[in-house]
Structure formats: C-alpha cells, structure tokens
C-alpha cells in the first residue's frame, strides 16, 4: 500500500491550480481496467476529483511527457514524480529536452508498484475489479469473494530491485526523503554472463523471438526522445513492422539498448510496458554494468549536466579486445 493517499495528492494539485502556480497537472487516471492506469492531464479540481488515481498501479513515469507538455502549456505544469522518475527528469534536463522553468515538480514517496502479470499468476484471468488497500483485493468474474494479495508478493521486478528511494530532483517534496539503495539489480545479468555462449544465445533467442515490434518500449522510454527514429524510417526496411526473422529481432533490441546506453536511468519503463514480458532491463543493465566496470560507477540522471560514459573518454581506456581477456582471466 502506498503511504501517501490519493486525497493528499488531489489536495496538493488543487491548491497549486487554485493559487495559479500551475495551469495543468500530469497525473494518473483510470484506464479500461483498474490495473491499466493511464497518464492524463488535469486542468481543474473537478476533473481531479472525478478521475485522478493513485494506487499500486501508477507505474507510469511522467518525465517524458514533459517534453511535449511543457512546450505546449502556457503556464507551468505540475508533475508528480516517484523517486525513480526523478532520475529520468534530470537526464532529460541534461539533454535540454524541456524547460525547467515551465515545470513544478512534486516528489512523492513510493512503496513499489504491483505487476499485473504476477497478480494474474495468482488469481488467473477475468479480473473485474481491484481495490488497493492494506492488501490488494482482486475480484474475478469467477469468484464472489475477492482474493487478498500482499503487495510485497507481487511487486514489479524494477521495484523488487529498486535502486533508490531518494528524490534527486523536485521543487517540493511530500513525505520523507528516502535513500539510495544498494540493490541486487545486476545479479540476473551476472547469471547470464556466467552461462556458455550457446546457453546465452538460446536464452535470448527465446526471449527476443516473442517481440511483436509494437515499439511500446521505445515509446515509453524517457531516454528515447528523438523526434525521428531509425525504426520509423521507411528506407530502413524495418520501419514499424514485426521482425521478419531472428536477425531483425536482434537488430532492434541491440540498437534500442545501445542508443540509450549511458543515458538509461534504469527506470524500468520498457520492461513494464512490454506486452510480451520481454526482460528488456537485462539488456539495459548489461550496458550499465559494463560501463560501471570499464569506466567507473555512473548513474544516469543522478545529477544534471554530467557526461554519459559513451560521450566521454580518457586516453587510457580499456581496448575492446581487452574486455574479453579480462573476463577470461577472471573466470
């Protein structure tokens, strides 16, 4: 259960709207089902009272929405940011993607978000309603009594391995300041690294062949903000279409992950939005882990204005071939 309540957030937003500090609010609203909460823009207290949602399904990271919204809006935009969202916020500022003056950021605490796939593993399909209280109460069309689930048991992968409860950017903070967490987020990557090349190949073939190239991972990613994307280019042969074979699958995933390498804040949006449950974070974290090992610890978005490892260099950098030599001697 979240520590902060929906009412507190509405009250805060309504007060800022009434006081004229902001003219629009970026928030979550109910989707078709209780669990597919979607981003929305609110302009009045009435709208907020009617549709605003805050519960264990508010995973959406709003930082990227600021690129379009802050440019369009006359006044300031209020944005609610969970700790992990603030890293994306800083990263976008580093890349000059929106005007900081046009945004009023309110940091809100987060207890971790629920993963609907894990909930469905427990109670199956046919979910008619979900109530997030002390426990998550899931009602299905097959049972009269709701199934009570402990939120801790169905946490999203990125929240199990949460890297920080600390807000690195805000104008105002609700609740208490958290701390950076020493998480186990690289453990899975290390496991894959320890496999044989054949096993790795089979593992990724199995994962990536499920991709339907819906582009949701790219669209949701706060690091992917180019207005023109190579994967939309009609001359590329791979524009907006399902991968024709395993080469195209791999190409998409290598290029997507490479393009955000060094800038990816590990916010986890890509894995969250993937309808095929492909563990995209395992690709991103490979790059993060490698760069930490090759060039020193770096967390994208921790501060505004830092230089990402791939747009930086030192004269004594490791050679591409040495990367493997080192790994072989380690093993």
């Amino acid at each position: 259960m979240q520590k902060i309540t929906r009412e507190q957030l509405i009250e805060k937003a309504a007060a800022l709207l009434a006081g004229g500090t902001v003219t629009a609010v970026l928030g979550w609203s109910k989707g078709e089902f209780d669990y597919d909460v979607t981003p929305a823009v609110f302009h009045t207290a009435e709208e907020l009272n009617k549709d605003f949602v805050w519960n264990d399904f508010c995973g959406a990271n709003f930082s990227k929405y600021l690129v379009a919204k802050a440019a369009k809006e006359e006044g300031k935009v209020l944005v609610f940011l969970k700790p992990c969202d603030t890293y994306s916020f800083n990263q976008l500022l580093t890349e000059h993607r929106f005007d900081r003056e046009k945004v009023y950021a309110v940091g809100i605490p987060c207890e971790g978000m629920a993963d609907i796939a894990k909930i469905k593993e427990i109670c199956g399909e046919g979910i008619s309603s979900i109530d997030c209280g002390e426990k998550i109460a899931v009602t299905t069309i097959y049972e009269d009594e709701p199934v009570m689930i402990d939120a801790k048991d169905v946490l999203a992968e990125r929240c199990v391995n949460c890297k920080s409860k600390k807000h690195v950017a805000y104008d105002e903070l609700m609740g208490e300041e958290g701390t950076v967490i020493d998480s186990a987020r690289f453990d899975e990557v290390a496991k894959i690294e320890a496999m044989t090349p054949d096993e790795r190949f089979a593992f990724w073939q199995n994962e990536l062949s499920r991709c339907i190239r819906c582009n949701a991972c790219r669209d949701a990613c706060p690091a992917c903000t180019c207005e023109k994307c190579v994967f939309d280019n009609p001359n590329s042969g791979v524009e907006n279409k399902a991968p024709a074979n395993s080469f195209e699958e791999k190409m998409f995933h290598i290029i997507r992950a490479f393009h955000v390498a060094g800038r990816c804040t590990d916010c986890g949006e890509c894995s969250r939005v993937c309808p095929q449950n492909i563990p995209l974070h395992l690709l991103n974290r490979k790059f993060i882990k490698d760069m930490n090992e090759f060039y020193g610890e770096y967390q994208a978005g921790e501060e505004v204005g830092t230089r990402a490892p791939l747009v930086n260099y030192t004269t004594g950098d490791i050679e591409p071939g040495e990367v493997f030599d080192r790994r072989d001697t380690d093993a």
Partner: protein
Amino acid sequence: MQVKEYKPLIVAFCCNWCSYAGADLAGNNRLNYPADVKIIRVPCSCRVNPMFVLRAFQRGADGVIICGCHPGDCHYTSGNYFTRRRMAALFSMLDYLGIEKERTRVEWVSAAEGAKFAATMNDFASTVAALGENKRLEDLRCKK
C-alpha cells in the same frame, strides 16, 4: 562433386587517414592478405555506427573489423577514443547475446603499418574461418 573451400567474408571498416593508407601500403609492398577482406573506407573510425556492424553481418559478413589511427593520432583528434568506448560496449553486448566474440575486432593501424595491416587481416580471417559461417546474426533473405 567438388566441395568449395570455405572462405570467410570479412568486412573491414578502415579510416581514411591511417588504416586505409595502411592497406594501400600493404598492397604497394605486395603483402598478401585474403581477397575476401572487403574494405569500406570511412572518414574516421568513429563514423562506424553499431548499425553498420549489424548490417554487415546481415548482408553476409562472417567477421567485422574496425581499423583506425592509433589512439592519440586520430585525424579528428579524439574520434577513435569514442570508437574505442562504443565498440567495447557493442562487442560486449554481442557476446552477451551469445554471438561469437571472435567475429568482431578493433585494431589500430597507422599509414606506415602496411605489414601490420596484412598480418592483422590474415590473423583475423583465419580466426573467423575457424568459427565457420556466421549463423547467429545471419539473414537468410540476404543469402545467395
């Protein structure tokens, strides 16, 4: 039936200012290196985008090598330092996906190193030949 001897197709991206001239020198000195090394001249090694490497494999390459000026000698001062970081990241990722790490390489070859160029290509071609055809990053539509 006659079995054709397998010869790997190698794509070598060579920067205009050092490695391409190095290849030229190798030719002038009549040094042998496999004819299946296809050289693509690029203005600087850092012109090579990860997509180029993948496309080369797609179109039938069995190995891809990137050659540039020695670190510190890049015609554009720092291009090859970026190449070095990018390719370290990219090759490590390819390895992570289970693609043979011996199929990719970066080598620094100056304009005066014709012999090094030929030796590098011979060595790389035999390493790749030992692996056989590129199956893991192939695109059957591009195969003849």
